[in-house]
C-alpha cells in the first residue's frame, strides 16, 4: 500500500494545479468581458494582449 503515499499527493497536486489555473485566469481578467471575447475573434487586426490586472483599474477590487 506504499503506492498511495505517492498517488495521493500526485492526485492532489494535479487538482491544485487546476485550481490555481482557474484562480489565475480569474485574476488576470479572462472572465471580465465574455461578450467582448466572443466578438474579438472576428476582428481583422491582431489584438493587443489583454491588460494585466495591475494596470486595469476596473479589476482592482477583484
Amino acid at each position, binding site marked *: *500500500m506504499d503506492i*498511495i503515499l505517492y498517488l*495521493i499527493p500526485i*492526485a*492532489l497536486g494535479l*487538482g*491544485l494545479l*487546476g*485550481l490555481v489555473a*482557474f*484562480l489565475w485566469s*480569474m485574476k488576470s481578467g479572462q*472572465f*471580465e*468581458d*465574455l*461578450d*467582448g471575447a*466572443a*466578438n*474579438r475573434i*472576428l*476582428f*481583422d*487586426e491582431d489584438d*493587443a494582449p*489583454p*491588460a494585466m490586472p495591475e*494596470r*486595469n*483599474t*476596473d479589476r*482592482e*477590487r*477583484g
Partner: protein
Amino acid sequence: MGHQTRASGDRLPAWVDADAAEVTGRQPGCCPAGGAAIALAPPPLSPARGAADEGLAHDVTAYVRPDGAGYALALMVEGIHCGGCVAKIERALAEQPDVRRGRVNMTTRRLALAWDGPPSRGGELAALVGRLGYRVAPFDPDQLASADAAEEKRLLRAMAVAGFASGNVMLLSVSVWAGHFQGMAETTRDLLHWFSALIALPALLYAGQPFFRSAWAVLRRGHTNMDVPITLAVILASAMSLHETMTSGPHAYFDSAIMLVFFLLVGRYLDRRARGRARSAAERLLALRATAVTVVDADGTRRHLPADRVAPGSTVLVAAGERIGVDGLVVTGRSDVDTSLLTGESVPRPAGPGDRVFAGAINQSAPLTLTAQATGEDTLLSEIVRLMESAEQNKARFVGLADRISRAYAPAVHLLAAVTFLGWWLWGGAEWQVALLIAVAVLIITCPCALGLAVPAVQVIASGRLMRRGTLLKSATALERLAEIDTVVFDKTGTLTLGRPDWIPDPGVDGESLALAAGMAGASRHPLARALCRAAPDVPVLADVAEVPGRGLSLDTPDGPIRLGSRAWCGAAVDDRDAGPELWLARPGRDPVRFGFLDTVRADAADTIAALKARGLAVELLSGDRAPTVAAVAAQLGIADYAAEVTPDGKVARLTALTEAGKTVLMVGDGLNDAPALAAATVSVSPASAADISQTAADAVFQGDRLHPVVDLIDTARKVDRLVKENFVLALGYNLFTIPIAMAGFVTPLIAAVAMSSSSLVVVGNAMRLAGWRRPG
C-alpha cells in the same frame, strides 16, 4: 407639476439639427445586425461638435488619474451594440500614437484608456470617441467597483476552492467506503481520514465564510436564517469528524461538510449571477449626476462646477449636445430640448427665452443661457429619484418563499437535534459522546442542501430562457412576485405605444407633397422628419436644405422658400383644434399642407391585453397624456379602466390605493415619471427603450417592439412558482424520510453523502423540466 405630465397641447414640432439623437435608439451605419443587438443604452449623439467637445474636455479631466508614466481614464460608453462598435472605437484609439491602452469591455460597456502625455489629452481622446457617435461619461472606477461585483468574485473563488476540495475528499471517501466492505486496515483508513481533514478543513474555513458571516450577522440581530443551520452543521460535522479521526473512529463526515458547502455555493453564485446583469443601468444613472456645469460669472469668466455646487441664481451656459445640469429659466438662445429622460416623450420640445428647462434633459440644437433656479438635490430629477426611493422601501418588505420557509425550518431542525441528543442520553442509555454524534448526524442529514438549491436552480433556468427571448430579470424575487399578481397597470406612451410618432396616411395629402416633404425631411434627424422618411422611403434626399432650430427646414427655390415645419412658421391658420404633433409644408403660391402624426400602438398590444384578460387579470391604463388620446387608445385596446393626465405622485397614489384594496399589481411603464410608480408596484416591468432610471426601478426589462414578453413573463413566473413549490415538497419530503433514520442512529457518512447528492440532483432535475417546457398559447 404640469411639466411632468406628458404631451401637453404645445406639441409643436421642434427641430433638431443633424446631430440629434435618433429616436429609435440605433445609429445608422452601426450594427448591420441591429435587430439582434441589445439596445439598453440610450441613443448616442453623433457626432459631437466643437461646443460639446469643449464641455466634455472639462468634464473628464477631473477623473484622469496618473498611471505609470502617463495618465489613465475610465469612461462609460453608451451606444455600443455589437462587436463592430468595439472594433471601431479601439481602431480609432490605436491610430493615436500616444495611446498606450484603449480597450472596450463590451459586457460592462466601459472603456479603459491610458496614454503618455498631459492629463488634458484625456479630454481630446474622449471627444474622439464622442465624434465616432458614442456618448461617453467619465466615472471613478473606485467608486463604482460595486460591493456586489466584489462579492460575486468572492463567491466564485470560494466555489472553486470548495469544488476542488470536495472532489478530492470524495475520492478519498469512496476508498474508505469501499474499505468498509473489503476489510481495509484501520491504519490505512485513518491515514485517508487525515488526508481528508487536511484538505477539507482549510477549504471549509475559506469557502464557508459567506455562510458564517451571514449567519453571524443575523444571529447578532436576534434572527435566524437558512445560513444558521448550515453553519452549525458544517462546524459540528468538521469538529466531530476531526474528533473521530484523532481517536481513530470509523465515521468521518468531511465529504458531507465540504460537498454541502460546494452545492450551496453553486446555488448562491447562480442566484447572484442571474440578477447581476442590470447593475450597469444604475451605474449609468450615477454618471448622469456627474455632469459638470459651466457657470458664467458676473465678469464674464467661465468656470466648471459640479452640478450640486451651483448656486441658484447663477448664469449657466449649456452647449449643444450637453445634458442640462440644473433646473432653470432660459435667458437667451433658442433650441430643442430632449426631455425623454424626464417624461418619456419622444418628440423634443422647443425652448426659448422664458421657458423652464429641467436637469437631466439634453439640449440638442443650439447653446442656451439659463438662470439656475434649483440645483443638486432640489431639482425635479432628484425629486423624482427621491419619490422612487421612498416607494422602493415598500418593496423591500417582501420576503421570498425560501426565507419564509427557512424561518420555520431552522428552529425545527435545531429542536429535532436537541430532542435526539437528550433522548439518546437520558432515555436511550447512550454515553453523551455517542448521543452527540447521533444529534450531529441529524443536523447533517437535515442540512438544507436541496432547499438551498430549490429556488436558484429554477430561477437560473427561467432567467436564462427569458434572456434568450430578450427579457432581463433584475430582481431575485421578481418571478415569485409576478406569480401572485392579479392586476396589470400600463402606462401609455412608450409602453402600449412605441413612443415614436408615425405619419397618419391622409387622403388630403397628395403624392407630390409627400415626396417633397419626405425629400426635405431626409436632411433632418428630428423624430417627425424621420417618420416622414419612413412613410416614403424611396424618395431621394434633397440637397441644400437648411435647418432652423426650433422652427423647421427650409429650401430656397427660384420661386421662393419652401418650408417644412411648425404651424406658425409655415403661416398656416391657427385653430383651436388640438391635433397632436404635426408638420406643415408651405410652398410659394399654394396652401400649406398638414402632416399629422400619431404615436402608434405596439402591433401586438391588443392581443396582449386580451391574453392578460384571458388569464383573469384586471387591466388598467394610467397615463400622463391628454384625456382624448388616452381614451382613444383605451378604446382601441379594450381597456375599460383608464385615467388620463395623471402626475407621477398620482400614479403612486393609485397604486397604493390598489395595494390597500388587497390587489397585487404589476406596473408596466417606461418614463422617468413612471419610475416612482414602478417602484411602488408589487412588481414592475419596463421596455428596454425606457429611461435608464425606469429600468433601474423595474424588476424586469423587455426588449423589442412587441408587448407580448409581458404575457410570457407572467406565464413563466407562474410555471416557476409551481416548480419551486414542487422542489420544496421534494426537498422536505426527502427530510421526512431521512430524519427518522438519522434519529434512530443508523446514519453513516455513506448514507449522508448519497442522500444529500441524490436530493440535490432530484431538485435540479425537476428544475430542468422548465428548459423543455413550451409555453401554452
